[in-house]
C-alpha cells in the first residue's frame, strides 16, 4: 500500500484500523511500521475523526424533548393505511387452504376437460332446419342494412 492509497483509505473507512478489511489492515500496518509519514497521516486522521465526533455533539440539545413532541403529535387518530389490492390479492390467494376440497376441484377440472373434448371431437347434433332458417335470417338482415345502390347512403 502506498501513502496516497493509505490516506484515501483513512478518509473512506476511518482511522480505526480494526474496522478495516483484514488484507487492507495488514498492508496498512506494514506501511505504518516502515513510513513515518504514514504514522503522521494516521495521527491526523484520528484527530479529524475525534473532531467530527465532537462536531456531531455540539450545539444541539438532547433529541428526547423533540422526540417527545413528535410522539405527542402522533397521538391523534392515525390516518388510514394505504392498501393496494393488486399487491394484496396474491397473498390472499396463497393463504387459501385448498387441501380439503382437492378432490372436488379435481372432479370439476375433469368435467371441464371432458366438455372441451366432446365439443371438439364429439358427434354433430346440429339441426339442419335450424341452419337453413339461420341463413335466411342473415340474408334478410343484410338487405336491411345494405347501402342504397345509387347514392351509397346507409339506411
Amino acid at each position, binding site marked *: 500500500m502506498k501513502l496516497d492509497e493509505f490516506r484515501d483509505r483513512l478518509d473512506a473507512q476511518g482511522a480505526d484500523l480494526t474496522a478495516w478489511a483484514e488484507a487492507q489492515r495488514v498492508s496498512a500496518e506494514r506501511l505504518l511500521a516502515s513510513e513515518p509519514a504514514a504514522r503522521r497521516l494516521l495521527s491526523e486522521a484520528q484527530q479529524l475523526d475525534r*473532531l467530527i465526533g465532537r462536531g456531531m*455533539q455540539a450545539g444541539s440539545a438532547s433529541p428526547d424533548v423533540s422526540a417527545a413532541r413528535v410522539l405527542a403529535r402522533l397521538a391523534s387518530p392515525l390516518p388510514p*393505511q394505504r392498501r393496494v389490492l393488486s399487491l394484496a390479492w396474491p397473498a390472499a390467494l396463497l393463504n387459501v387452504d385448498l387441501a380439503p376440497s382437492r378432490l372436488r376441484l379435481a372432479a370439476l377440472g375433469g368435467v371441464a376437460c371432458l366438455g372441451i373434448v366432446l365439443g371438439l371431437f364429439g358427434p354433430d347434433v346440429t339441426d339442419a332446419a335450424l341452419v337453413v332458417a339461420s341463413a335466411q335470417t342473415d340474408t334478410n338482415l343484410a338487405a336491411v342494412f345494405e347501402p342504397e345502390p345509387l347514392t351509397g347512403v346507409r339506411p
Partner: protein
Amino acid sequence: MDEASDEDLMARVAQGDEPAFRLLARRYAGRAVGLARRITGNDADAEEVVQEALLRVWTNAPRWRPLAAFRTWFYRVVLNLCLSRRRRAPFVSLEAAGDPADPSADIAAALERDQAGRVMAAAIADLPDRQRAAVVLTYHEGLSNAEAAAVLETSISGLEALLVRAKRTLREKLGANRHGDIA
C-alpha cells in the same frame, strides 16, 4: 412485544396494529430527530420531517417488503425528506445563527471543547448535502459504510468517495494547524 425485532413490528403494523407502530415510533423517534437535525440544521424542521416519516411508515406499511433492514429504509425516508426540505428552503448554518449564551462560561476546558465542536459543526453544516449526509450517517448514527450506502442508495465505493471529499473539505476549512491545536 418490547423485544420484538423491527421487522416483526413492521409486519404487525402492516396488519394495522397501532400499538406496534407506536412502539416502533418510540424506538426510532429520538435517533431520527438527531439525524434530521444534523441534516436540516434546526429543530422545527427536524421534528416535522420525523413526524412525516413516521406517518409514512404507518400509511405505507401494508406495501412495505422486508428487502432491507427497517432501519435502513426508515433512515432513507428521513434523509430524503430532509434533503427535499433543504432544497425548498435556504439553510442558515450554525455559525451564522450565532452562539447561544453559555451559563458555564467559567469552565475553560469545556468551552474550548465546545468551541472546537462548534467550528466543526459549522464546517459540516456547510458541506454539500450528500457529503454531509454521509458524514452524519457514519459518525452520528454509527452506521457501517455498507449501511450508510444503502440509506443513500449508492454503492459502497460511492459512499467512500463522498466521505473522502467531505473530509478533504473539512480539512481545508479547519486548516491543518488549527485542528491540531484544538483537538
